Every structure is written in structure tokens, then in C-alpha cells.
């Protein structure tokens, strides 16, 4: 049971990440691979804040949001000039830069040795020390993310984003400041990723740059592609599948000499089949 609770915590964290990324890609059509960078900044804000500055968990969440928002605002201004593939490439560049900073700014991030001993969230005198309590907190935030997604999706802001996704030029001609819309959703998505990062750091209690590489951004992208673009439920289901599938495969009675390799092959094959039969994702409302 305890194992499932841990799995559920990870599922919750990745659901938050997928929802924040789907706002950007699914709603806005802005293919960003920088999500892992903002996720990492949020995680490091919590790790450094809690272990070096003595801040509380929730204060470090705010710190992560602020740092991410500022960075995303600056980078968003640059990214707003790009569209389609170029947007993806430039965002991938940001991911690589952030990873490089995390890896090399050793006096602050401890480089590849990482930061350990990250504490659990506290409210007053209550510490979310048990995994069940931690899961409860993660789920509260996951539901809040879900509701925020749905609210934005139905709002006029969300409708403009979807129009922008379908035809940016036309949306601009209709009088909407498309660059501003792109910047706002980029900042919002980055800030939300930082929250997920904070939970990840507190849950794992140890972080190093390897968890926030470009490949993590591609993994998050895969989650929303499998679940379906522009769909809140798709983000959550995508996270459920991609997080739990490799864990489920641990229980398949494969011969131990080749189990690890076979598990990865099965995992890859299942994703491939899913894409063949459901190219728009399981709950996708929009196809790239």
C-alpha cells in the first residue's frame, strides 16, 4: 500500500507538470521544451531555500514562482517572436542553459553532487512527514491545477489562446496582442511548473541536475501527447500511464537476466502502439 502511495505522489507531481505544459502547448499551440528547466528551478528554489536559507516549504514555493515568473517573462519576450518549430528549438536552448547552470554553479547548486536533506512541508506545527499526508497535500494542489486549467480553458483568455493556436496571424489581425498572450501563458505555465518542482524536491529529499535535463522536458511532452493535447483529463491520464506503466512492468515475471531490457522494450512498444491507434492522444481535442 505504501508503495502505491509513493506512486500516487509521483503521479500527482507529474499531473501538475502535464497540466501546466498542456496550457502552453494544448491551449496556446506553443511547443515548449523548456518545462524541465522551470521544474528544476522550482525544485532548486525549495532545496536551497530549505537547506541553506532556513525557509519554510511554502515560502520556497513563492520563491520558485517569483524566480520562474521573472525568468519566463524575460525569456517569453524573446520566445514570443518565434512560432512553431523555432519556438520549440529556442525553448530547448533555454532548457540546456538552465541545466548547464545547475550543473556548474557549484557554490549554490552543489553541481552534480546535488542537494540532500530537503525537508517536508509544514503548516504551523504540523509537518507533512508521512507519505499519506504528503499525498493529500499533493492531491489538493493537483486538483487546484486541474480546476485552474478548466477555468482558463473556458475563459475569454483561453478562447483567445485557442484562436492563437489555430491561426496566430488571423488572431492578431482581429486586434488581439498575440505576443502578450503568448508571454502571459508562458509565465503562468513556468510558475506552475515551479510548484511541481517544489513538491518533487521535498518528496525525493535529494535533487541533482540529472532530473531536469532536456530529456525530462521531452518526457513531459510525451505525457501530454499520449494523454491528448488541450485536454485536462488527458494530461492527468497521460501522467498516470507514463508514470505507472514502467512500475507495473516491474511486476511482470520476466527472467531477471533480461528483465530490465525487456521492460524498456515493452514500454516503448506500448507507447508506439498507442500512438498508432490514437495519434491524437487518448483524450486529445487538437492534433499538431
Amino acid at each position, binding site marked *: 500500500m505504501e508503495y502505491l502511495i*509513493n506512486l500516487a505522489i509521483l503521479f500527482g507531481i507529474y499531473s501538475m507538470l502535464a497540466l501546466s505544459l498542456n496550457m502552453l502547448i494544448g491551449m496556446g499551440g506553443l511547443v515548449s521544451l523548456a518545462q524541465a528547466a522551470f521544474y528544476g528551478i522550482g525544485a532548486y528554489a525549495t532545496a536551497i531555500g530549505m537547506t541553506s536559507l532556513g525557509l519554510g516549504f511554502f515560502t520556497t514555493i513563492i520563491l520558485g514562482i517569483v524566480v520562474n515568473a521573472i525568468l519566463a517573462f524575460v525569456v517569453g519576450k524573446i520566445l514570443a517572436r518565434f512560432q512553431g518549430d523555432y519556438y520549440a528549438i529556442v525553448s530547448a536552448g533555454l532548457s540546456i542553459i538552465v541545466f*548547464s547552470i545547475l550543473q556548474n554553479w557549484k557554490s549554490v547548486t552543489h553541481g*552534480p553532487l*546535488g542537494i540532500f536533506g530537503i525537508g517536508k512541508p509544514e503548516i504551523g506545527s504540523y509537518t507533512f512527514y508521512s507519505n499519506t499526508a504528503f499525498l493529500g497535500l499533493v492531491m489538493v494542489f493537483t486538483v487546484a491545477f486541474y480546476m485552474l486549467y478548466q477555468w482558463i480553458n473556458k475563459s475569454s483568455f483561453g478562447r483567445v489562446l485557442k484562436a492563437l493556436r489555430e491561426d496566430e496571424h488571423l488572431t492578431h489581425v482581429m486586434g488581439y496582442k498575440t505576443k502578450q498572450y503568448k508571454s502571459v501563458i508562458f509565465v503562468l505555465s513556468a510558475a506552475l511548473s515551479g510548484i511541481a518542482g517544489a513538491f518533487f524536491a521535498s518528496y*525525493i529529499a535529494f535533487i*541533482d541536475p540529472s532530473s531536469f535535463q532536456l530529456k525530462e522536458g521531452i518526457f513531459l511532452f510525451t505525457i501530454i501527447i499520449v494523454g491528448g493535447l488541450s485536454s485536462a483529463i488527458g494530461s492527468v491520464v497521460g501522467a498516470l*500511464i507514463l508514470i505507472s506503466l514502467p512500475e507495473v512492468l516491474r511486476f511482470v515475471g520476466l527472467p531477471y537476466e533480461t528483465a530490465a531490457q525487456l*521492460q524498456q522494450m515493452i514500454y516503448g512498444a506500448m507507447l508506439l502502439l498507442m500512438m498508432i491507434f490514437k495519434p491524437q492522444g487518448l483524450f486529445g481535442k487538437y492534433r499538431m
Partner: protein
Amino acid sequence: MKKFLLSLCMVLALVACKDEKKEEAQADTKPVVKIGVLYPLSGDSAFFGDSAKKAANLFFKEFDATKFKYKYQLIWEDSQSSPVRAAMATHKLIDYDHVDVIYDMHSGVSIAVSPIANAKKTLHLAFAQDRAISTGFYNWRVVTSTKKTGEKMLSALKKRNLLNVIGVVENIAGTMSLYGGFENVAKQDKDMSLETMSINPGERDFNLLLQKIQSKKPDAIVVSLHAPEIDIFMRQARMNEINIPIVGVQSFTFLKDKSLAEGSWYVDVAMADKNFLERYKASSGDEITNFAENFYTLLQVTTTIYESFDGKEKPTHEEFIAKIPVLNGVISPIGKLVVDKEEQNVDSEASIRSIKKGIVVAIEE
């Protein structure tokens, strides 16, 4: 879609509702000691897991399992050398498999496992050097300390009068920890001049770096690099006709093409004795052990302590830890073991190795 999600939920539910008692009943009369092995079994570092499996086969072939008071069961999980995957696998090993001991390797993985093992009061034996791993009562390391490898490197350099050296270290937890041990002792030595340059994993062009090093005219270059960077570095050093001695902190162990460091020497954790190397080769057919001797030692450490109990009931983790000092002086494939209670490490002597005709050989100094 509904069917897929339903089946996924059913599998997860089955996992949750597994009947533990039934599993216990299936075991024979001896108490079963479950050992969770969290090693890289896929990806770039999978060869370590492969060697560990071969070492386990050799261990159980050599020790008559019927004479053991306990039955030892290994449960293998792939760490993928990733802290996140390792953390999930640790939860699985502890909560689902109910393992008594967890083995793992690589500092990044071991540091992620440590807080979980400690919180769940499960014994954790790591073949990794970072001191942070040994935080908490239940986390121990079984590895040559970085202090010993550092001291060995320093004395080897001084013996050869190589006093002005440039270090090239890769930004990876393991290589940095090992190099850190050398850097610490070198900085305290008045005769030694050490300048350190770092590279990032994934870097492929070392030509400029090599030229820069050459312009500084050091007595030697000390590399602490992982695969595949070490192969690329050595190849480019050869292409640039670098005639300064290149020596290594562990690095040459990771060389795929050992001929690139033919005749060079390096310092590493304790090396397997000749006898073990012959037995290992005869059993697995492999010349190169990839730390198989260390996995063998992990098993020897575990069984030595367990077998010192009466075999009627499994000792608690606390009882096991209290008995760790019995390992002092135990002869293993990596030599005599020394228990360092303060560091929570079962230490061994560092080795100086050389590569001759593509084979790693020990140098007696």
C-alpha cells in the same frame, strides 16, 4: 481506453492486495534474507549490473548455500542510474518485496535511496563514495574511502616526482567525489601544485583544453573522467601528441579501449586479488570485472554478519548494524576489510593499477 485504464487499475490493486503470508509459507524452513539489488541493468552503465549478476553467481557457487543458516534471495531492480527511478524502486523493494537489505551503486542513486532507507528503517549498503550517503543510522557504505584513494594518488605522484599537476574532472557525482578526495590531500601538501579544470558530461572536443594544459607545462595530467568522455579524451590526447604523463583517478577502469592508456597507471578502489580474477574469469569468461569483486564483497559482508547469528530468527536491522565491527580484518576479494564506525564505511585499501597489453594489472607499491 476504459478497458486499458481498468486493467491498469486492476494490476495496481493486485499489487496492493498481495498476500504476504502466502509468500512466507512458500519459502523453505530457513529464514529468508531478502536482498534488494538496485543496480543499473539497462542503459550506458548496464555492464555494472551484468558484472554484479556474474559475481552473485560466483558467490553462491563458491559458498555452499546449504550450509548457510539463512536463505539469501536476491531481488534485482533497475536503477537506470536515475535518482527518481531508484527512489521508486526503493519504495517497491521495501514496501512490496519487504527486503531486509538494499544494495546499490553510484553516488547519485545512493544519496536518493539513503533518506528512504533511513525513514523506513531498512539496512542500506552502498558501493558509492559520497559521505552524504552514510547519513542516518541505517545507511552504510562498503567502499574504499576517497581519503584513501586520494592519499594513494598523492604518494604515487610524489614517488615519481610529479609535483606540478593539472587535474581534469568531469562534473558527475562519482568522479567528483573521488577527485575531491585527492584534491583535499593535495591542497594540504606543501610540495604539490594542483590546478583543476572541469568538463561537463557530453563534451566531445577536448583539443583546446589539451592545448591549454600543454601550454602550462605540468609534470602530469590527473584525469577523473567517466565513459565515454575518458575514451575521447585519451584519443584526442594521442592525436595532439601530448607527451605529459596522463594518470587517472579511477577513470581508466571505464575505458572501453584499454589500449588508449597502455602503460599508464591510475588509482582506484581496492582491486580484486589474482585468485579472484582467475575464479571470476573461469566462471564468467570475462577478463574485466567492472567492480564484480565489490559486489561479491557486499554479499560476503552481508552473509558474514547474518551467519554470525543463530539462524533461528532473522536479526533486526539494529542487531545487524551492531555486529558490523565483526567485519574488521575479514579477508575479502578486495583485501582486508576495516570498519570505520564514524564514517559508517567498511573500508578497504586503495589500489594502483596499470594497463598492460589491454589488461588491468595491480602495481605493488
